[in-house]
């Protein structure tokens, strides 16, 4: 990568399950992550669900 220094951090836009998973995997692999969430708390739509299919596990 001659001449172009790469930055070891990442912005993840959106704190739902997909964003959280991406952020966790990156943090676990040695990258600094900025997780940006529009609302006051992360969790996204999954936090609104009561149970999840097909196992009927609690979404929380």
């Amino acid at each position, binding site marked *: 990568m001659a001449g172009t220094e790469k930055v070891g951090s*990442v912005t993840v836009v959106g704190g739902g399950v997909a964003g959280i998973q991406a952020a966790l*995997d990156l943090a676990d692999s040695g990258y600094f992550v900025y997780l940006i969430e529009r609302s006051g708390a992360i969790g996204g739509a999954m936090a609104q*669900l009561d149970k999840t299919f097909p196992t009927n596990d609690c979404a929380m």
Partner: protein
Amino acid sequence: MTLCEVTDVTGTEGNFTVKIKEHPRYVDVDKCIACGICAEKCPKKVEDEYNAGTAKRKAIYVKYAQAVPLKYQIDPEHCIRLNKPGKCGFCEKFCPSGAINFDDKEKLHTINVGSIILAPGFDCFDPKEAGIWGYGRYPNVITSMQLERYLSASGPTEGHLVRPSDGKPVRKMAFLQCVGSRDQNRCSNEYCSSVCCMYAIKEAVIAKDHVDGLDATIFFMDMRTFGKDFERYYENAKTRHGIRFVRCRVHGVEPHGSDGDLRLHYINEEGRQIEEYYDLVVLSVGLETPQQVKELAAKIGIQLTPHNFAATSAFSPVLTSRPGIFTCGAFAGPKDIPQSVMEGSAAAAGVADLLAPARYSLTQEKSFPPERDVSGQEPRIGVFVCHCGSNIAGVVDVEAVADYAASLPGVVHVERNLFTCSQDTQDLMKKRIEEQGLNRIVVAACTPRTHEPLFRETIKAAGLNEYLLEMANLRNHDSWVHSNDPTKATEKAKDLVRMAVAKVALQSPLKAESVGIVPVALVVGGGIAGMESALSLADQGFEVHLIEKRKYLGGNARHLNHTWTYEDIPRYLDGLVKKVTENPLIHLYLESEVIDAKGFVGNFVTTIQQGGKKKEIKHGIGIIATGGKGYRPEGEYGYGEYEEVFTAIEFDAVKKAGDFRVKRGRTFVFIQCVGSRQEDRLYCSRVCCTHSVQAAIELKKEDPSRSVYILYRDMRTYGQREALFKEARMLGVIFINYELHGRPKVKKAKQGLTVEVWDHVLHRPLIINTDVLVLATAIEPNPVSKELAKLYKVPVDSDGFFQEAHAKLRPVDFSVDGLYMAGLAHYPKPVEEAIAQAKAAAARAASILSRKEIPLEATKAQVVLEKCDGCGLCIDVCPYQAITLLEGVDDQGHPWKRVEINKAQCKGCGLCQGTCPKDGVYVAGFSSQQLRAQIEAALAV
């Protein structure tokens, strides 16, 4: 960073500048203790978005009880004080920690990053504007998200299913599918939202669970239960839960009388006009990209599909049109949770491939306070009793349990919490441990499987050894299973707490060991999934061994022509094979098989056989991508008997070769679900509907005068593939529905074949004379999966596919640490999803390989040196081969024998402890004294 939105992105791959606007919270997060007094005092009630408008919240609020961060925020649109300075201000007056700050201002941040992942999610379609089925006018017409809240213990009715209009219990409810999906008349969303069929079934099942004798009907066009274990769930909903499924478009919902009842009319499959009456009508609303996301995409140059989802190539399913910017979740097309989680990991892999040279350049290690020495101290036990909303407290008298806990020996502190897992309770727990000098903790809540790591970390952060914790499972073991007997459930809760206290009192601090990691990967299977995993790991700088059974790479993709978006598979495949073969970090073994495997995460040893030669490979992680195979429908529909009958793959091949049967063919019939969705293979093969539709489109485009029929059970062109289904209909492809009990009948005719099927529109059998019959056959797991499963001690499900560690949250992990799966070996899936899963597996694997060592659990077998006499009984019972026998001679010349435990292989199952006749071995944290104390406590009433 909450309350933040991205306003601009400049720069290029590897080095972006991101501008972020942070909206004021008006609450100082460092001071807020989430006590809730502010919200109690706030006089302004507004509609609660979290509860989808089914309940009210205050103008100062927290999104939900388990919110992270658990900090209040003021809604500036509704706050009286912010709109009329000098008025109200109750929250500020009553806040005990002085956290309210009405002068908070918007902040702008600029951050420098190497890459960006867009996971902005979706909005539920709002049926109000289109006025669909009286939504917004009739109070008992609600959306599926609203129903989700009504069913939830933390929802407006604490899980009681009542009608919004009058609070009357619901006896009869209807779900109307495809609201805001597959619909161009009432909205412009012509795609399928992919998740609504399954969530409607789930909501119906849960609702029936809440209300005895509830009558639930789902009105649908096609049931699209195409995911893993979904078909079985659908089948159970029909047969076991008695949910009624009606295939039709309801054409009217009207109020019936003045008390809130609703009248539905529709035409049933027999062509009869039907009228029915319901208490509640649920609109299964689809998913769509939020307006502000479309604006952001336009601003930063991210191309969208015609359906407003991020445009991606099937071959780079998580990369947007702008290099260095990735995407995952519903923004990359409507999808369910496992697929979103998978893509989250895949996007992480995309970023990691790109930024590997900068790994660890900007991170810091997490630090914990030094551990407090509790040896020799009398137990000072703290018990935290969780309400779990109403999950526990709705059945168990938690106050009585807490009072009882306070009377137990050694207990010095007891506290009840609404949600013990919430962030504020973690802070509280830490505070109590310090204040009260607690040295043992019991959390009486839910299952340690999901929550023990959280509480361990909390007590560790308070300076206690993380193993000085015991959980009593008042939810799964008690309130859930004894919900009909609260008195006995409360007694049982006391028993469980008493047992936990007795056990934890004898617990001593444990020290976790760690093992080094061999930074090498092994990938089994050289199809698309295996190659993509291998390449991603190699791009991240790891050495990879890739094992393929056949002479060549490519697997099943060798038979495919193009993706659903018409991208050329052979060309992509050639490129991929070239990259894999030329990559210096990938060691390729063709015509090779795995014959033995041992070891554990970080240190596996796999023996492969190539030709007559054996080779041992040491590796830190393994990815199993052994693929699947096409079902051969011998004897079905004349397959193997008549030359006009092909499987879909065979049809593609003969068509490509210019076979005259296809070239001159005038009539073509496709039969769907051959071998799928039936008793012996109760799953949907996911790709066949799309494939047949594409083949039909091609046939029609080549010659519009041809007749093409697709005989189907449910058309499952999920997501944006729905556009293909529509195109096929526009081109004149004829779709005829059949049921499992009325399969088409195939006979030889003078010329070609006849296919007989019941026509639901004409209500009589239809006989089609056809030149070609294509059978859309099932995808089966590769038989080698079962053998590998035995070697690596990983599970396969009842269909023979590999079983993931968690259906929702760990869709690529095996339950064995350090092993991952990808591609058809997990479940039938199209190329783009196999690639996403392969990259996800690589990301998960990299999170292990990029570390130097991994900590092990401390709950492992320990040998008591003075008691073990080396009889070796434990060696035979250990299922993990973790025990070896040592022999020697001591200083005085006496021979000795004893066993030794390999801590990395030991899983702490305790079989050795149960077998040992001399108390010579025990599992740390589960000593015989502890178990005895627990049993005695259980019996001591």
